[in-house]
Every structure is written in structure tokens, then in C-alpha cells.
């Protein structure tokens, strides 16, 4: 149907900056101010009493505004995990092989009813088990952003 071959089509490449500037909102702002101090904050729903971390304004199942802030211990247990042998290239979305497999996990935070997706380091991939206790390793220099939680590691 097309009489053009790919060789006939000219290509002009260039870069376009797309500066997005996301507001985190007051709840995550408070969370990050605390993470800068190496503290982990959660928030509770007044109806079902569930504690959410990272904190958010609404408890979905109750459709209620959360109220009580609470400081949580920077540790939890592995709810589930996966060993990554590839990662997604941020430039073009393809999968690149990883030189060393990495562990990504859903970590249920102690004292909370929700889980954080993060990576587990200082551990061999074949040693990770569901329910394993893990703890946060904070960044050497915290800045009040998601990078403050550097990774989780198995609790000794």
C-alpha cells in the first residue's frame, strides 16, 4: 500500500524539553519534611482506623478524609517481591539487561496497613522470602524527597 520504503523517508532528530513540575500536596510535603529528618510518617482514617504510608488525603474504601498523623518505625516485612533481571530504559522504554539482578519488593510497613514499593539491597536475590523483616536505609544526605529512602535491607 505504501510506495515509500523506510529509506525514502527523511528523519530529523532533536530534543524538546518538557518541564513538568508536580505539586506533591500538603500530605506528601509533610511526609518529605519528616523523611528529611529520617522519620517515617503515616496517617490514619478516622472511620476504618487504617494507617496509610505514604500518607494521603483520602481513605478510598471509606471515602473519608484521613486525620491522625502517626510516626512509624522505619521497618516492615516483605509482602511480596520480584527479582529484576532487566530494567526499563527511561529514554525509550525498552528493557535493558541488568549487570546484576536487583530485588524490588512490596514492603508492608510495621504498624501500618499499606505497603511501599521499593528495592531491597544488601541481600542475595535467592535469599529473599515473603514475610522477611526489612528496615529502611536512609540516604547519607537527605533532601526532603523520595530519594531520602535509599533502600530497604534485611534486618539482621
Amino acid at each position, binding site marked *: 500500500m505504501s510506495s515509500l520504503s523506510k529509506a525514502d523517508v527523511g528523519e530529523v532528530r532533536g530534543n524538546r524539553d518538557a518541564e*513538568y513540575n508536580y*505539586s506533591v500536596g500538603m500530605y506528601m510535603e509533610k511526609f518529605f519534611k519528616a523523611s528529611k529528618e529520617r522519620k517515617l510518617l503515616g496517617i490514619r482514617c478516622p472511620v476504618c482506623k487504617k494507617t496509610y504510608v505514604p500518607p*494521603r488525603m*483520602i481513605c*478510598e474504601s471509606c471515602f473519608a478524609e484521613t486525620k491522625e498523623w502517626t510516626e512509624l518505625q522505619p521497618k516492615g516485612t516483605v509482602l511480596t517481591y520480584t527479582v529484576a533481571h532487566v530494567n526499563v530504559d527511561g529514554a525509550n522504554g525498552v528493557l535493558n539487561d541488568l549487570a546484576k539482578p536487583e530485588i524490588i519488593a512490596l514492603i508492608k510497613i510495621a504498624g501500618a496497613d499499606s505497603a511501599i514499593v521499593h528495592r531491597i539491597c544488601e541481600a542475595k536475590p535467592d535469599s529473599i522470602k515473603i514475610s522477611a523483616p526489612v528496615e529502611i536505609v536512609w540516604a547519607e544526605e537527605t533532601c526532603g524527597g523520595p530519594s531520602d529512602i535509599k533502600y530497604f535491607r534485611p534486618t539482621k
Partner: protein
Amino acid sequence: MRNIAIVGVGITKHVSKRRDVNIPEFVYEAVKAAIEDADIGIRDIDALVTGNMPGFEGVNCPELWGGGYWGGYKKPMLRITTGGSTGSSVAQGAFYLVASGVFDTVLTMGFEKQSDGATTVGLESAGMSDFVAMRAYGMPELDPAGAIGMFVFQAISYMARTGCTIDYFDRAAAMLRSNAAKNPYAHIQQQVTAEDIADTPMIAYPLRFGHTCPTSDGACAMIVTTKEKAQKMAKKPAWVNGWSSCAEEASIAGLHGAGSINIDPFDQRGCKFAATKAYAMAGIKEPQKEIHLAEPYVPFAHQLFLYPERLLLFNEGESFRQFDQGVMHRDGRLPICPSGGVVSSNAIGAAAMIRIAECALQIMGKAGERQVTRDVHTAVAHGLGGQANFNVVTVLGDKPAGR
């Protein structure tokens, strides 16, 4: 088909930047307001219909993240997106879901948190898909100046064909901005004169800065329900009696040839077709006589004249001639955009829904300081989207169409 009505409306105060909320929290404000307005609980909502223009926030399908914040947990949820007309297409989705009998009460919301994103990127990716169209409007690749190129052509064409002059646009903008001054949710609320508008810099002749919409963070939510439930939820429901939409072709490049949009964006046949169908559905035979209020989609001042004609409220080329008699003013015979219109508040995903919501509020008598002087028994709302190739028309009334 069942009779349906709007029983609750929530609109956020539009501003340039809401830094204190993220996207889900922001839309929740409108949802909360609509639910409180209808005095119902989230359990009364059977389904949700939502939409926005994702290119502007750079978040793909934000209702996946935010749906639970808006009462969508374990409920049916639909996403509809059509550009600037999104808000009206989303509302139309809610109309179909209720009128068809599939759901009784639907919560619908349109929003845009433009401050989170790069507006030019959102617009460019519309233009970039069609280089030939961009070139036709004189948009350079590296810095497309936004949607204004096409609307400049539209404004010039309107002037050439009808004899309208730029001073009318100045007066139109002054009226709209002054209307917005009485609207607590509007972005630009300025009591201004035509001279103030004429003093603003020219962006591209004949459109001045003062004729042009802002970019806003804004959200709107509405509750749509059946006749039986409406009578319990609202003292005076706003009945949605007619609706239609019409798509024209925008593409120049490619094998489908040029569409009317790019030949002459003044034409807007789609608006006439959609209006004709919507009026017929609502049982309106003479819109010029029977429609009491209009909220067309007017991001640029010249469209205050163009779209009411395309909505069959004035003969072609006649609308601006009646402007100075005060016909379109808030105390006039046919008030147009008493809310201040899109030229005063433009959060893209919300703007077209707000046109419907504002008509509903006027019919319900709940428009506060911006309530128009005359009795409003019927109203028409309009949404414009895509490359001005989507027109969506909604006709509301204070009585259900006899179905």
C-alpha cells in the same frame, strides 16, 4: 430513553497554581462540593465518568491513581477525552449512562491541573502530529505558540465575512471579564472596560492579550441522575433534555485530504449540526426565541459572536450587531456566558463541563451573584475541542422533555 437531570454541581476556584494539592486531592475538592450540593453520600453513586487532557499534566490516565480519591473504589469508572471539549464529552458520557438505564446516578468530573505541567508541551504534541497544519498556521517547530494560530484565522475570517471590527472584541472581552468578577470560581475576575482591553498588547492581529483565556488549575464535578431520584436530590433539578456532538476533520497531511477546519475554521458546520440535533432532541423548535441563556465555549473574545451564531441563536453575521443593545449581557434578553466564560477561566478538562454546570446553576437559581436577571427556563451549553473540530452541544431546561 429516561429523563435525566443534574442535581449537584461542584467547581473549584480557578487559579494559576494550586501548589497545595496534588491531582487527586485537587479533583476531590470538586467531587466533595458536588456530593454536598446534591446532599447525597458516595453510596448513592453508581458509576463515575471522568476525563482531562493528559498531555498537560504529563500523567497518563490519572484516574487510575486518583479514582479512589473521587469515590471510585470498586465502582464502574469510564474515561473519556476529546481535547477542549473533554468536559462536555465526559458529561455526555454520564448522560448516556443514565439515560440508557444502565446506571441511575453517575458522578462525572472534568479537570486540569495545568500548573503541574508544561502547557506548551501539551499543545505542541497536538501540533507536532501534523506538521503541515502547523506550518499552515505559521507555528514554528521549536516554539509553537499554542492554539492561538488557528483562532487568529477564525477571528480574521469572522471580521472579513461579517464586517465585525476589533473594537467589538474589546467590548466582548470587557463584558466577559466583568461577568467573571461576580463568579467566585472564575480565574480572572476583573471589572474592566473595553479601553483596558484595547490597551493590552496584540498577540497576533486581531487577538489581543486581553481577548485571550488564561491557563488555570480547575476542576468541576456534577451529579447526574434519573427523574425519580432527581426529585429527591434537588429542589429544582436542571433537566438535561438534548445533547449531540459532531466531529469534523482536522488533518491536512496524509491521505485523507484537507478537512473543513483547515480550509476555514470560521465554518464550524459541526457546531450547527450538533446544535440542530440537540435542539430537536430537547423539543426546541425555534432556538432564537426559546433559548434563554447560553454558555458557548469562548476562549477567545471573537467567539462570543461566532459560536452563538453557530448555535443557531442568531442569524449568520448578526450576533455582534445586537451586542451594543445589551442583548448578551447579564441583564439582557439572551445572556451569554454570565459565568465569564472560558476567556476568564480555562482549565481545559473542566472548561466544557463548567459550561453545562453554569447553565444548570442558572436554571436551578443557584448562580449567586452571577444569576441573570431574566427567568431561565432553557439554556444551551457548548464545548469545543480537538483542533476546533469537535463540537458538543447540550440543551438544558427547568422541565423534563416529555419522554
